[in-house]
């Protein structure tokens, strides 16, 4: 079988061969038994393919498509609300912290004695609250871990957890699969 002529056969089956190419093909087929047999086989295959039916879509396919789109829109809507809610919550927290700092600064400037007493009490309270951290630091230091390494590990772990949380929130949720008819 000659490959240059099988190319012509393919073109001929697609009605893309011109008259000269068709003449060349038929002339070759008259003298080449292998290609003539292949041509007969290709024509038979072509006929089988052309006779193969276009399959009908399953019933209610259009309805299921529209249902899948509706589900997708609902999910997008709620994801949008979740994102907006988180942003508003972040703004509120940041606003409260800013107001507290500004208010504290103003109060400290106008009442320096009270402010110094309050700061002292806050430092004592903080020191009491943070004793587990201090103890952990002492233990790590005695185990040979430098404070810098401890802080770096703490920040790394915190960043990792924050990253996982953000990924969970913003990751693209898979579209819900509407019922698919199974013939198995």
């Amino acid at each position, binding site marked *: 079988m000659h490959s240059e002529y099988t190319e012509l056969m393919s073109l001929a089956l697609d009605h893309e061969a011109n008259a000269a190419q068709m003449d060349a093909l038929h002339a070759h087929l008259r003298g080449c038994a292998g290609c003539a047999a292949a041509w007969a086989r290709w024509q038979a295959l072509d006929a089988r*393919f052309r*006779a193969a039916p276009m399959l*009908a*879509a399953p019933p209610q396919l259009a309805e*299921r*498509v529209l249902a899948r*789109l509706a589900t997708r829109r609902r999910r997008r809507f709620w994801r949008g609300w979740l994102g907006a809610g988180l942003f508003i919550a972040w703004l509120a927290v940041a606003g409260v912290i800013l107001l507290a700092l500004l208010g504290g600064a103003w109060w400290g400037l106008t009442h320096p004695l009270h402010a110094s007493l309050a700061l002292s009490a806050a430092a004592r309270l903080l020191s009491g609250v943070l004793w587990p951290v201090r103890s952990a630091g002492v233990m790590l230091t005695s185990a040979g871990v430098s404070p810098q390494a401890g802080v770096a590990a703490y920040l790394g772990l915190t960043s990792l957890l924050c990253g996982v949380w953000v990924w969970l929130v913003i990751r693209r949720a898979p579209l819900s699969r509407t019922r*698919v008819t199974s*013939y198995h």
Partner: protein
Amino acid sequence: MLPDGWTVRLKPLPAWCVWMSVKTVSSMDHAAAEAQEIRWLEQARRGDQAAFGRLVEAYQRPVYNLTYRMLGDPAEAEDAAQETFVRMYTKLHTYEPGRKPVSWVLAIASHYCIDRLRRRRVTWLSLDEDPAAMALPSRRPGPEEAALRQEGRTEVQAAVMRLAPGYRVPLILRYWYDLSYEEIAETMGISAPAVKSRLHRARLQIAEQTLAH
């Protein structure tokens, strides 16, 4: 029997258009049907859900046929057809006026099927195995399988399934949609000579496999 005034034109309209002419548009010619689809596309782009629904109804058969011919499994083909329409909806703004709408939809479907076949990560079956027999459920045949068996066409689907995805698409678009080399090239995003080459190789492979069987 078709009602009076209904005509079925087998040539030169492609199979999907023949179906549409029988099913919905009766005497409407191909150009008018295409113009109607473009109008629906425009309306869908402006957010008209009903117009998009009409597009889905118009294209569900050609899209399902393509996904089935590509994937060979009825349930997977239906899921792929649904996903094709969802992608079509999200890509409505990318439709370029002047392009045949059906060619655009088939491009989305064929690219999705190729992606899906890649994700399957299957080892291509050897020529001694019969992929159609594996892909088509055998215990309780569905309507597609029944139709295929009834008409003795399982060997056609088996031959398609033995081809690599890159060869399946041009063959399917050529035989079931009667697209020209240029239209197949546009649909697949390759050149017309590449389409010619792939169709040639696909036919070579099918002929060799037929001989082997």
